[in-house]
């Protein structure tokens, strides 16, 4: 049986999935509004005239290009939502399924079952105690390593949650701008103005948003700074000689 601490979902899984819900509904709204605007333009195409239409088309194309840039990020993210959830889950399991049960063995290793073991003396007893101490040190080292890998994954989980939240903000903002333009472009006179405002504001929003995503992406890459930590962890031979469990009994 596996009991996950409640914090697993509250801290990571929940905001992560919530952001994805916002992304999905935001995209639907944005696309819906965009199509409404195009439809409105088409209804009034004869009144807008060739020059007006050309100008509107330029602005709508710019809007579409900005939306496409966001949609590319969204598609990429949607494909990975479930795999990244497994990373969040795994980071908790390193603590629950590995660190905690191994740490319980630390005390047991050097705590004799019977106090009468104290009556045992001589070379064999000394050798046994030395071996038990080394085993305990290896146990404690494994506990630290399980904690380390869990924290490393947490950092990565954190940057994923941040990324999803930022992406949701962009999509929500985009949907808002498009809804506003769809409302404002209600008359033939308002259409050109509403659409040029839209193109400009969507362009700004997407540029700023993608920059923020790059910053979050950088934080994800920075977790690789820990790649040296991870190598050091694997290469720490003091308690796990030769990167192996210490042999008490030779094969």
């Amino acid at each position, binding site marked *: 049986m596996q009991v996950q601490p409640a914090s697993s979902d509250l801290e990571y899984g929940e905001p992560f999935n919530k952001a994805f819900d916002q992304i999905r509904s935001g995209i639907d709204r944005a696309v819906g509004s965009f199509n409404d605007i195009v439809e409105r333009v088409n209804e009034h195409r004869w009144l807008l005239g060739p020059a007006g239409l050309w100008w509107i088309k330029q602005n709508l194309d710019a809007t579409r290009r900005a939306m496409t840039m966001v949609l*590319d*990020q969204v598609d*990429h*993210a949607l*494909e*990975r939502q479930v*795999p*990244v959830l*497994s*990373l969040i889950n*795994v980071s908790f*399991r*390193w603590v629950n*399924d*590995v660190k905690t*049960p*191994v740490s319980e*063995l630390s005390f*047991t*290793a050097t705590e*004799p*079952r*019977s106090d*009468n*073991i104290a*009556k*045992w003396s*001589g*070379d*064999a007893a000394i*050798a*046994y105690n030395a*071996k*038990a101490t080394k*085993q305990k040190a*290896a146990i404690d080292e494994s506990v630290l390593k399980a904690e380390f*890998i869990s924290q*490393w*994954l947490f950092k*990565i989980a954190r*940057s994923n949650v941040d*990324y*999803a939240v930022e992406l949701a903000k962009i999509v929500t903002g985009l949907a808002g701008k498009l809804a506003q333009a769809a409302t404002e472009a209600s008359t033939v006179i308002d259409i050109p103005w509403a659409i040029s405002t839209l193109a400009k504001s969507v362009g700004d929003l997407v540029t700023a948003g993608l920059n923020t*995503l790059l910053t979050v*992406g950088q934080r*994800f*890459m920075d*977790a*690789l700074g820990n*790649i040296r930590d*991870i190598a050091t962890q694997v290469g720490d031979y003091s308690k796990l000689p030769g*990167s*192996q*469990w*210490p*042999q*008490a*009994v*030779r*094969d």
Partner: protein
Amino acid sequence: MKDLAVITDALRDEGKKWLAMSDSIAKVKTAAEQLHLEPSAFFIGDASVVLHAVSYRDFHTFMVRILNGAVTEFDQIGAALRRIADEYDRADEVISLDLDKIYRA
């Protein structure tokens, strides 16, 4: 020899402790084996995940290897303690043992 029985009983108890520890850590090892992650699990954004994925895979392999080592070692310590108790019983006293032989699987 009363004291000898007390010691060998304690040694056999101690041996059982290590066998139980071996069982416990075997379960941990099985749980740890399942903690692999696909490269796609590392980032939802558009960034290279290869180094993260490879680093994790190496660390994961390392952890499973050492846990597996612990399963074997704990089991063998349990067996060694039983051997010591048997040797003492056979000699009817706490004799000096060839430790190289005792602590060899």
